[in-house]
């Protein structure tokens, strides 16, 4: 494996170093590398120096390995396993340990506030790092599901743009749904 160093420059002109293998976790960087347009430093005008190290940390963990992150996205179960002829119980156990370890890492990695979450989502989108985008989008979804409309508006700073009349009608609709709970 080559361990060529790549240099990335953040929007605020700070330079960071990353292994080529790790950088390949990003489709955008991979295309730049493969395109041979590598001219010393790759400028990333959409990613600040606050967030770039976090992105690099993710790439280091996942560079050259998209298999395990895919398994996590499927809830840790590899659906294709059953049809593999050389299914190996020991290998399966090792894989489970690997997946568990990765899950734990992701849990710690994802412990940050909403601003970082947004920035990371934007960076993952811009750099086409599918695993990181999935992870961050899933986290945002978890902040929506199970919350009341009021809580969602507050958490995400959303203005309810319903007119007072519409608001009233929406409350009626909500009451109707609440009735679905009630046993008569």
């Amino acid at each position, binding site marked *: 494996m080559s361990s060529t160093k790549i240099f990335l420059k953040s929007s605020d002109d700070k330079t960071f170093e990353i292994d080529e293998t790790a950088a390949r976790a990003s489709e955008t960087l991979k295309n730049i590398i493969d395109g041979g347009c590598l001219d010393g430093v790759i400028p990333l005008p959409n990613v600040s120096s606050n967030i770039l190290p976090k992105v690099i940390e993710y790439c280091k963990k996942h560079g050259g390995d998209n298999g395990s992150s895919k398994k996590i*996205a*499927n*809830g840790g*179960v590899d*659906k294709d396993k059953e049809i593999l002829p050389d299914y190996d119980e020991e290998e399966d156990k090792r894989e489970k340990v690997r997946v568990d370890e990765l899950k734990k890492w992701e849990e710690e990695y994802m412990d940050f506030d909403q601003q970082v979450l*947004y920035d990371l*989502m*934007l960076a993952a*989108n811009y750099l086409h790092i599918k695993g990181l*985008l*999935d992870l961050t*989008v*899933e986290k*945002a*979804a*978890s902040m*929506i*599901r*199970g*919350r*009341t*409309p009021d809580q*969602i*508006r507050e958490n*995400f*700073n*959303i*203005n*309810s*743009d*319903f007119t007072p009349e*519409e608001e009233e*009608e*929406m409350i*009626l*609709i*909500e009451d*109707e*749904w609440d009735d*679905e*709970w009630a*046993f*008569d």
Partner: protein
Amino acid sequence: MNDCSSSSSASPFESSPSAVATDESDSPHSSLLLPNLPDDIALQCIARVPPFYHNELSLVSKSWLSMLRSTVFLSTCDRLNCSRHFLYFNVEIYGSSFKWFALDHNPKNPRNLYPVPPIPSQPIGSTFAVLGPKIYALGGLVNNTLSSAVWIFDSRFNRWESGPKMHIGRKLAIAGVLNGKIYVMGGCGQSTNWAEVFDPVLGFWAPIPSPVEVTRRLFCASAVMEEKFYALAYYQGGVVFDPCDSSWRNAPTELSLRWRGRVVVDGILYCYDGFGKIKGFDLKEGKWKELKGVQRDSPAFIVDVVMANVGGRLFVLWVENRNQTEISCSEVEVSKDSNGGLWGSIVWSEVILAVPVSSYIAACLAVEF
């Protein structure tokens, strides 16, 4: 099985209650869904929230309301391509009404249960089967007549639709899914249509020839194991139907001894034994074994137990009469030790719903979408 492509291009939200004039256009929304995030990313975030929340999400703001009704949103949901498993269950208040719920357990969620739209007119004694993201409600009793009606719930769009009718009316039939097809048997008199199979690709039911000595029996439960359909009977013994060669054989006698709650996880058929224990049947060994590590202290209050395999985990729901009637749920991780012993460890367990006294769980189903 897990075909995520949309089978319907119509907006599933058009039938949802609305007193508010909405912009039905599919153009990108000018107002921001999640402030400080581009709408295409916000769409992806919201699309990951399971569909049974969507009704409530439309109360957040006008832009959320119109976004949830747009085809852009639906196609984003379709493209997600991440498999998720949820438990849906149906509570029947004896002789009165039915309620459907979806369970989304998460310690961080303030609540676990979400109401799911009811079947427009749910027959009594329907049989249920799940194909990928769809729940099929088969037959039942309507105005004291056996119904051949089929209702299909698409969990991706959170709504029921009527489906292709069976050839014969039935109630309390048995059903199972094999090779992406629904098999339904019994719950009717002796008939050439006693057993039928539904192919969702072709969209119709076809009768399966079945021997008279099989159709005479009274079946109470079914299970699908090793690509075969096991029909369990109270008294006359069970049978095994193999769709590969359309053969019928007698099932191991031991197998028909238990039928309450039955579900298959990792090839083991689990049942509730009626005395506070869960038992598992290993087809290879041909005997029932206790699931150790999950025994309860006071089984006397338990009225009804149902189970489902939700993404490889054993979910147990039961109705219990203590001070009031309640439905509780346990998520159990099951494993097999090197001696073939069955072990369960409870991941979480709590009361999820208070219900009227005469309630029981008519269906408990794992849905994948």
